[in-house]
């Protein structure tokens, strides 16, 4: 097995660090060889706040993955998130030289550079510029302009940017292991590779990845990314709310949320209580189910409402034809799909990585969507690399900028 075929995705999440090892196959599919994970500490809201602890967790997850997949890991694709990440759409345009035979690669690079000539805060750096559409002399719907004749090449890009130092922190954390960082990928972009099919992207789809610390989202219309971003609220917030509202420790709240929690109100009978057994250091407690559900409901509803408000700012939601896909750890909350359906008024699916082979148990868990997405993304990136004209996916290495 040649080394090139091995792809490793690393997601340093708020609740867990996960390392997915995959094998890229000549037919374009990816086989998951193993998934290593370790509970994460030192990460808050998707960003590293305690460097040493986080490094240790990454190391643990890595060792776990190496054992399970029997592969030496040297380089990884790292997923990043955090509420500092922002995005917007911009169009770049370039005039093709008159004596030139058709549009060339360099024109395309020029267009990409042009599209980036917008002001972002000075401490920010570009993470991705994802191609949306080409226009040649104003003609829409050009799939590949290379070799076409035309005087003016334009291209729409979806540009993702974030605060440089925070992104570098993540990279440094990985480099200390030591591991090579192949590329940095914005989490929802990676997750969407495996959660959404090309058909769904073409029809228009919204993917919401509710993780431990943050909620990432990405919206596709006509197969192109139109909107993406991060909301700094996640499962941790729900747990925190429960802990504060019911006055029980965080660990108990987390367990309660996973085992008993639901976002649906009015489903439990009055007097329906959950017994928390007493144990050393914790006097047992009876908890009314409705109370627990109210706390969860309020938080999840608010989060989804905020998300909708953000998405409504740009009116792309109307073009979403295939519905909403919720993934990430929080998607396991009972009834979250019904609540989202009620709020967004369109079909909602709780989903996970789809287009994979190998370890079934791994990709059927929505918690691993991003990790698996990272290797799929990496594969798409690599198949583009050897001199071929990039598909819409091609993205530059973050460090270049």
């Amino acid at each position: 097995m040649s080394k090139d075929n091995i792809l490793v995705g690393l997601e340093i999440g708020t609740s867990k660090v996960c390392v997915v090892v995959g094998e890229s196959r000549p037919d374009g599919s990816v086989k998951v060889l193993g998934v290593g994970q370790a509970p994460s500490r030192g990460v808050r809201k998707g960003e590293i706040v305690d460097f040493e602890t986080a490094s240790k967790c990454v190391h643990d997850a890595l060792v776990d993955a190496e054992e399970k997949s029997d592969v030496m890991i040297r380089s990884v694709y790292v997923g990043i998130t955090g509420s500092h990440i922002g995005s917007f759409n911009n169009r770049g345009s370039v005039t093709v030289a008159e004596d030139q035979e058709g549009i060339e690669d360099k024109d395309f690079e020029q267009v990409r550079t042009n599209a980036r000539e917008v002001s972002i805060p000075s401490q920010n750096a570009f993470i991705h510029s994802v191609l949306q559409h080409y226009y040649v002399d104003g003609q829409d719907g050009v799939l590949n302009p290379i070799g076409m004749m035309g005087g003016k090449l334009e291209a729409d890009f979806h540009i993702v940017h974030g605060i440089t130092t925070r992104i570098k922190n993540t990279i440094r954390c990985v480099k200390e292991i030591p591991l090579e960082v192949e590329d940095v990928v914005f989490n929802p972009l990676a997750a969407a590779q495996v959660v959404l099919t090309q058909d769904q992207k073409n029809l228009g789809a919204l993917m919401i990845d509710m993780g431990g610390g943050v909620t990432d989202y990405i919206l596709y219309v006509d197969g192109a990314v139109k909107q993406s971003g991060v909301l700094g609220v996640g499962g941790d917030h729900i747990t925190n709310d429960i802990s504060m509202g019911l006055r029980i420790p965080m660990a108990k709240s987390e367990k309660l949320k996973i085992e008993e929690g639901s976002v649906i109100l009015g489903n439990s009978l009055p007097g329906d209580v959950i017994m928390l057994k007493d144990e050393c250091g914790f006097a047992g407690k009876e908890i009314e189910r409705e109370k627990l559900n109210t706390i969860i409901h309020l938080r999840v509803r608010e989060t989804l409402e905020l998300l909708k408000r953000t998405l409504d700012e740009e009116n792309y939601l109307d073009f979403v034809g295939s519905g909403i896909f919720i993934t990430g750890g929080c998607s396991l909350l009972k009834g979250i799909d019904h609540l989202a359906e009620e709020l967004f008024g369109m079909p909602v699916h709780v989903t996970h990585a789809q287009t994979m082979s190998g370890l079934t148990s791994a990709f059927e868990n929505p918690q691993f969507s991003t990790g698996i997405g990272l290797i799929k993304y990496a594969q798409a990136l690599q198949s583009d690399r050897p001199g071929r004209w990039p598909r819409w996916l091609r993205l530059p290495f973050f460090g270049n900028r």
Partner: protein
Amino acid sequence: MIEINRLSAASAGLDMKIKIIGIGGAGSNILDRLVLDGIGDVDIVAMNTDVQSLTSSVARDKVQLGRNTTRGLGAGGDPEIGLAAADEAVEEIRQILEGASILFLCVGLGGGTGSGSAALIAGLAKEHGALTVVFATLPFGFEGRRRARQAEDALAALQEAADVVVCFENDKMGEAVPPKAGIHQAFANADQTIGQSVKAICGLVRRSGLIHLGFDDLSTALRNNNTRCLFGFGEGEGDNRAHEALAIALRNPLMDRGRMLADASNVLVNVCGGQDMTLNEVQILMEELGRHIGDQTQILFGAAVDPKMTNRMSLTIISSVPAAETDASRAIPRDSSALPALREPPAPASDTADSAQEREAGEELGQTSLVMETPPPEAAQTEPPAVRPKGGSKVPPAPVPAAGPPPPKAPVERQETLLFEPVTRGRFEKSEPTIIDGEDLDVPTFLRRHIKVK
């Protein structure tokens, strides 16, 4: 006896007649800003070739330059015309200068009026024996190379003619503006920064502090030909005021987060606080600042106690670095007579936006000047004898100019203190808050919505 000395020193300070002259369009914009922020007891004079701009100026005294040369129009970006215009009005200028002992000239270089006439006016002031401090702005990079050259020439002439030249680069000042902010805010920011430094220097030379900094220190800090000014002003409140003040001062675009200070050979630092300012605080602040300053750098330290500054602390940093250090940023230079045209319309809007705070600060400035006559004796006790006092005189202090460059984090903190009930954020207590539409999302939803779950 010491008391008497102090009083005489204080009144000597008051006797100094200070005049602030704004030349050209950019100059009068700075005057407008100064008046808006409140500058206290000084004479403000506007000089311009353009009658239209002159009439809209808030200055009490106005001098029209080049009545015959330009007939009330601008100098058209030509320094030659600017010079001729000023030549024509020499007598009027002399009258204005009469009796002034310190003169502040505010001028935007690169255009016609400012570039042409500033050096001449500075020369006239010298003839009158007035100390001359020039605040000059260099044009934005996008204003073109020619303007930049004109500005450079004018700056060289000014450095010959004036005692001290404080030079600002518009490009640098524009950097502090958020990328989405309008152009008017870039200009307003530049004016604000200059306004702050005018006030700071004005306060510095006019008043004596516990450890006094005088005109001599100022000119040391700004010595060397062809230099760019580094200026930072910050004010902090509460327990952490020393850090806050320093952080805000260093956030000033002209400071480049303190990186520029490493290259400076002389740094003037003036600390001003209420009577509760402790020696320890000053030490902490200076230690922290010391990390940004090179080993060879001379620190000109001044301290002042102002009863009005209770619970607060302000810090002024003034220095200069050779122009070469900043060359990169002014490789494509700019002009300034285009400034007035660009500036005038948006000025009022931007002023209302950010001047409320400053006006407050301005009032303080006025108040402090009153207090000066009765210097608080306790101040001497609260103030550390360990910091070597230069003169026996002590009185309220130096600069109490406007709040530093808009501190982006401030609203966040205020939001929290405004809530009526104690808010708890649980495990997110120490993490960066997630604030959307003014709501702190780390606080449980049911608490924010006041929904009872108990």
